[in-house]
């Protein structure tokens, strides 16, 4: 670890057609750290998150200038295998989106699609390991073959996390992973994030500033497409260096 860098973003400008959504964003994301991105709606934080595993590629007219590197490798180079990239950089969305199939098949989905294993016994192991890592195993181990849609919202979200973990990613991107959940499910997800950072690099977008303060090691504050401040979380929430950050996190929105 030390000063090593997992994702390095230098001078990134992002455009949706002629509309510029990110302006000269530079940041270094450290491995086994939780990095939180905060800012008002439309500030570019989700665009930034989705740029990291090229989820924005699907949007017509979207393009990036500048450089994003994963372990020193240019994410946007022609030689980058995007499928492989998204396996290494997994994503969890705001609305839990389990597939209409069993819990087991949900978790095994990525492994099967990627052809990572064909053996049933290995698949069983991966499913159990992923569900354990997502802190869900004990709750659902007796009903693995029931539909994932029958679970509660918080459990569905953890199925999605297990599904993301099953393909052994290195980075997890989370876009408002707990905003549709009740406080107890939220606390479980936050506890999970805390455990997962030992093995993964996590980047989380959240509107809930207390959540950012609770779960992250470093926090970036975005405003109108600019990264205004990137700082240690404990520093940013006690004595931020930037006045705009201060005004935003204390609730002085103007």
């Amino acid at each position, binding site marked *: 670890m030390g000063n090593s860098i997992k994702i390095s973003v230098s001078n990134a400008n992002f455009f949706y057609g002629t509309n510029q959504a990110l302006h000269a964003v530079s940041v270094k994301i450290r491995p086994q750290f939780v990095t939180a991105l905060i800012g008002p709606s439309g500030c570019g934080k989700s665009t930034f998150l989705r740029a990291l595993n090229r989820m924005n590629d699907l949007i017509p007219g979207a393009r990036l200038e500048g450089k994003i590197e994963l372990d020193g490798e240019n994410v946007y180079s022609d030689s980058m295998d995007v499928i492989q990239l998204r396996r290494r950089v997994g994503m969890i969305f705001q609305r839990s989106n389990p597939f209409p199939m069993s819990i087991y098949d949900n978790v095994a989905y990525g492994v099967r699609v990627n052809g990572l294993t064909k053996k049933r016994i290995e698949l069983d192991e991966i499913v159990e390991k992923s569900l354990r890592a997502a802190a869900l195993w004990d709750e659902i181990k007796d009903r693995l073959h029931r539909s994932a849609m029958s679970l509660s919202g918080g459990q569905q979200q953890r199925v999605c996390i297990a599904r993301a973990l099953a393909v052994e990613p290195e980075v997890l991107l989370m876009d408002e992973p707990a905003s549709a959940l009740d406080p107890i499910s939220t606390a479980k997800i936050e506890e999970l994030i805390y455990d997962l950072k030992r093995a993964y690099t996590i980047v989380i977008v959240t509107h809930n500033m207390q959540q950012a303060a609770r779960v992250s090691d470093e926090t970036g504050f975005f405003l109108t497409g600019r990264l205004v401040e990137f700082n240690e979380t404990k520093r940013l929430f006690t*004595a931020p260096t930037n006045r705009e950050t201060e005004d935003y996190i204390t*609730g002085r929105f103007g």
Partner: protein
Amino acid sequence: MPDREHTSKHYEQQLRILKDKLLLMSHQAEQMISDSIRALVDRRPTLAEEVIKRDDDLDQLEIEIDNLCYQILALEQPVARDLRFIATALKIVKDIERIGDIGVNIAERAIELIQEPELKRLVDLPIMADAAQRILKEGLDAFVNSDADLAETVIHNDRMVDGLYEQIFRELLTYMLEDTRTISRAIKLIFIAKHLERVGDHSANIAEMVIFLVRGQDIRHGTRLDRG
């Protein structure tokens, strides 16, 4: 740059009420010190008794301020400058309350001293009282106006008050050595000087917290909170 207002008017109002209460309390504590010294110098026991009675109001304000701080912490979850403001309020309210107690202590000694003949014309003690009151006032002004530069001046000038204490102590010692009948009165005057020296210390504590409030740096005990 003046603070922008919170989007939540209720939150803004709570912080304003807290600040107003702190202002009222500081003003009362300041007044207790200056009146207790005036009671001594002008030999007015009724003024001293009045100071003693006022302490209850100060204690009441301390409790109200503490409760308001806890309420804001629980309900508004303040961060950054607002968090530092609440933390500062919780700390300096104790210093202000202690300054009020010191006013009572000085008033009690004054009542005793007034009943006896004057030991000497009081010259240095009023000078020290002025100096202590000035840094107290400046410490509180620094808080009210979020003025870190003024706070630094207060910390520096506290040393001057300490110097005056040493001087008064030595002078009263010579009185006691020359004439043992002065011991009781001289000791009471030394107590008063010591009390004023403590006013200086509390003012310096307040000033240190003001620097934390404004700059987010902890300068107490020669430390800095910069990282970690």
